[in-house]
C-alpha cells in the first residue's frame, strides 16, 4: 500500500523551506511506522493483537483513539475504528491527523503559504500568489485525471473518502456493512483531522451525512451517490 505526499511551499528562503519540509515528512513517516497495519511490529499491530494494555499506549495512539471515539459518539456509531471483523483500523483517522500535524509543523517553522496533499487529503495555508486562493480540485470518481469540482481554499482542509481507489475500506459501524451508500464524499473544514473523519463518516452515512457533517464542523460537503456514476469500462 502506501501513498504519496506532495507539499508545495511558497517561501522565499529555500534553506528554511527545506528544513521545514524535512521535518514535515519526518512527522508523516513516524505516523506511518506507528500506525501501519502492514508492519507487524507497529504499535497498531501490537494493539490489534492484544499485546498492549491501555497504560502501555503512546500519547499519539491515545490521541488518535480519542479522535475516533469522539467521532463514533458524534455519529451514533457510524464511524468506528472497530472493523466488522473485530480488528482495529485507524486509517480513518491517522492520515488526516498526521497530515494536519505535519502542516502544523510547517506553520510553526514559519511557512505561511503552502499546500500539503497526503494521498488526496489536503491542507492549504495562505496563498500560492498574493490575492489568489489555492485551487483544490476534487477528483472525478470515475476518472483519475478528471475533475469534479474546484474548491478555492486559503486556510482550510479538504478530505475525500471514496470507494474508487481502495474498494470497500469503509464500513458502517452500526451495521458492519461495507456496502456504503455513496461513491465519494468530500468535506471542507478548518482542520484536516476533522475533515478526514467527517468524509469517512459521510461516505458511510449516505446523503444524510452531508447536513450532519455541516453540523459537526464541515464548511462544505460534496457527496456523490452511486446511481449516476458513469460506468467504468
Amino acid at each position: 500500500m502506501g501513498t504519496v505526499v506532495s507539499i508545495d511551499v511558497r517561501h522565499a528562503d529555500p534553506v528554511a523551506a527545506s528544513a521545514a519540509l524535512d521535518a514535515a515528512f519526518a512527522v508523516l513517516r513516524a505516523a506511518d511506522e506507528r500506525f501501519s497495519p502492514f508492519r507487524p511490529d507497529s504499535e497498531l499491530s501490537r494493539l490489534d493483537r492484544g499485546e498492549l494494555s491501555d497504560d502501555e499506549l503512546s500519547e499519539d495512539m491515545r490521541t488518535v483513539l480519542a479522535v475516533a471515539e469522539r467521532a463514533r459518539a458524534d455519529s451514533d456509531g457510524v464511524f468506528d475504528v472497530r472493523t466488522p471483523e473485530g480488528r482495529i483500523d485507524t486509517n480513518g483517522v491517522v492520515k488526516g491527523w498526521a497530515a494536519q500535524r505535519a502542516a502544523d509543523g510547517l506553520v510553526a517553522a514559519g511557512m505561511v503559504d503552502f499546500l500539503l496533499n497526503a494521498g488526496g487529503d489536503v491542507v492549504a495555508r495562505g496563498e500560492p500568489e498574493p490575492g489568489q486562493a489555492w485551487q483544490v480540485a476534487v477528483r472525478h470518481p470515475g476518472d483519475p485525471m478528471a475533475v469534479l469540482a474546484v474548491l478555492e481554499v486559503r486556510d482550510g482542509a479538504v478530505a475525500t473518502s471514496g470507494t474508487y481507489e481502495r474498494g470497500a475500506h469503509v464500513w458502517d459501524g452500526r451495521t458492519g456493512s461495507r456496502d456504503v451508500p455513496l461513491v465519494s464524499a468530500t468535506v471542507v473544514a478548518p482542520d484536516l483531522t476533522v475533515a478526514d473523519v467527517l468524509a469517512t463518516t459521510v461516505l458511510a452515512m449516505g446523503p444524510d451525512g452531508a447536513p450532519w457533517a455541516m453540523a459537526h464542523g464541515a464548511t462544505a460537503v460534496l457527496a456523490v451517490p452511486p446511481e449516476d456514476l458513469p460506468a467504468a469500462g
Partner: protein
Amino acid sequence: MSTTPWRGTIIFVGGIAAIAATAATRFAGVEGAVAPALAGSGAAAANTSTSGTGSTGAGSSTSTGTSSSSSASSTGSSSPAATPAGKPAAKTGTVTVVGSTAQTPYGPVQLSVTFNGSKISNVQALQYPNWHGYSVQLNQYAIPQLNQEAVAASSANINGVSGATFTSQAYAQSLQSAIDQHG
C-alpha cells in the same frame, strides 16, 4: 483525449464562496491536455516536494524541493501498471446541487441549484442576508461558476487534487502527479 462530462447527481452543501466550480466537468484523460496548461502556472518561488510514505516502500522516494525554481521529484512508480479508468459513458440526468445554510462574509446563505446536464435550469437563493442587492449577486456569481467554461478555465491553475487515498502506483496516473511534475 477525452472529456468526461458529469451528468449525475451531486449533493453539495456549503457556502458558494468556497466553491469555484462544480459539476458538469470536462477534462481530459491524458496528461498532455493538462500538463501544458499547468506548466505555465508555476511560481518561481515554488518549492515542491513529493515523497512516498508507505509500508511497502513501493514507489517511494524521498526528496526535498528547495531550489528557487520548482523542483518536483515524483515518486518513481516503476511501472505504468495502473490503467486509467475507462472512459465513462455519459449519462443524462438531473444534476442537483442542494445547499444548506452556510456562513459567508455577508451572512448566512442557503442556495439551491438545479440543472440538467451542464445547463442550469434553476438557481434559487433560499435564504440570504438582509442585503437586498445580494440575491442578484448570488445568482450572477453562481451561474457562470457552475458552467463548463468556468471549470475548464480554472483547471489551468489547479494546485492540488483531493481524492480518495491513492496507492503509490495509482499516483502515477493521477492528476496530482501531473501537477507535481509541472507545478
